[in-house]
């Protein structure tokens, strides 16, 4: 059965829907859309240690966002189990670029050559999951936001700090794509 709920959505449907979470959160409780502050809230809740940055009332400022984040995980689960398994229809150019880097498995949302428990302790698996995850956590905390907080909420509100951050996102992303990934994927 091909139904709009079970297949990928075109960009002009997906984008506006994502953008609507900004007014939805503002109108329900004057909350600013941004996911990465949850990493700080989780640190504050679990392992604040003696770090001043993690000593604040996380329940008061962040409980709503942690609940939202739990929902994101559940939403992913529902989408996965209600959708048909398929290859992500990336462009032929991307497919060729990735084949050239040794990625042959195009099934699912992430290549199993990098994102399984079995490959976790290979160089490329470790770099993709452990090092990549660390950089996401450190970088978003340092920048004070991620794609949601800076690229969407921040740019939509015409904030210069967010524009600088988004330029940084792309500088880092391009560097990893063109200099780190070929080295790591090609070298194994």
């Amino acid at each position, binding site marked *: 059965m091909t139904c709009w709920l079970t297949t990928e959505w075109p*960009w*002009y*449907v*997906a*984008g*506006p829907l994502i953008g*609507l979470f900004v007014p939805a*959160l503002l*109108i329900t*409780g*004057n909350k*600013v859309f941004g996911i990465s502050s*949850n990493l700080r809230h989780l*640190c504050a809740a679990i392992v604040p240690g003696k770090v001043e*940055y*993690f000593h604040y009332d996380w*329940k*008061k400022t962040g409980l709503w*966002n942690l*609940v939202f*984040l*739990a*929902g*994101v*995980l559940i939403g*992913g*689960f*529902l989408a996965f189990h209600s959708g048909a398994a398929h290859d992500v229809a*990336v462009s032929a*150019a*991307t497919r060729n*670029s990735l084949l050239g880097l040794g990625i042959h498995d*195009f099934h699912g*949302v992430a290549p199993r050559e990098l*994102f399984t428990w079995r490959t*976790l302790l290979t160089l490329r698996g470790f770099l993709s*999951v*452990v090092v*990549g*995850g660390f*950089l996401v*956590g*450190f*970088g*978003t*905390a*340092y*920048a*004070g936001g991620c794609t*949601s907080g800076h690229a969407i*909420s921040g740019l*939509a509100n015409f904030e210069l*700090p967010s524009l*600088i951050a988004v330029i*940084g*996102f*792309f500088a*880092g992303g*391009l560097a990893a*794509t063109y200099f780190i990934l070929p080295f790591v994927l090609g070298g194994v």
Partner: protein
Amino acid sequence: MTTQVVSEFEGCGAASSEPQAARPAYLTVYLLLGVAFGFVLSRSEVISWFRIQEMFRFQSFRMYGIIGSAIATAALSIALIKWAGLKSVSGESISIPPKSLGSGIRYAAGGAIFGLGWALTGACPGPLFALIGNGVSVMVVAVVSALAGAWIYGWARPSLPH
């Protein structure tokens, strides 16, 4: 609503904002919004490592179309909210606290560090969690690693340029 949340922090504003934010009814709304967001992230495929590679290689308009139209929709919504002077359902006047620019270093450096991680994991923080729901269970390790990264930032914060 009979639920009373007793705040230990009776600072300015705390008494009015904390109880409503913590009420189960409000939390349910955020849970449902989160579920919807996780579903949208999945169906739009922005959680896919392949899509992120396609974006950083400039080989498809798709991701730019998604992010661009998301920003345009959000910007239009914010402008309408400001123009109409809307209040939130909870009765607060709606405002987005501005970020202070400072030297700008934190945005450039932090942004670039996140960008490296975005391309390597193929995921930003929201998609990291949506991916676990999508059965990519090894992303639990990426989340723990991201928490470690955020923690190290908090620890090193006093000595980092902002």
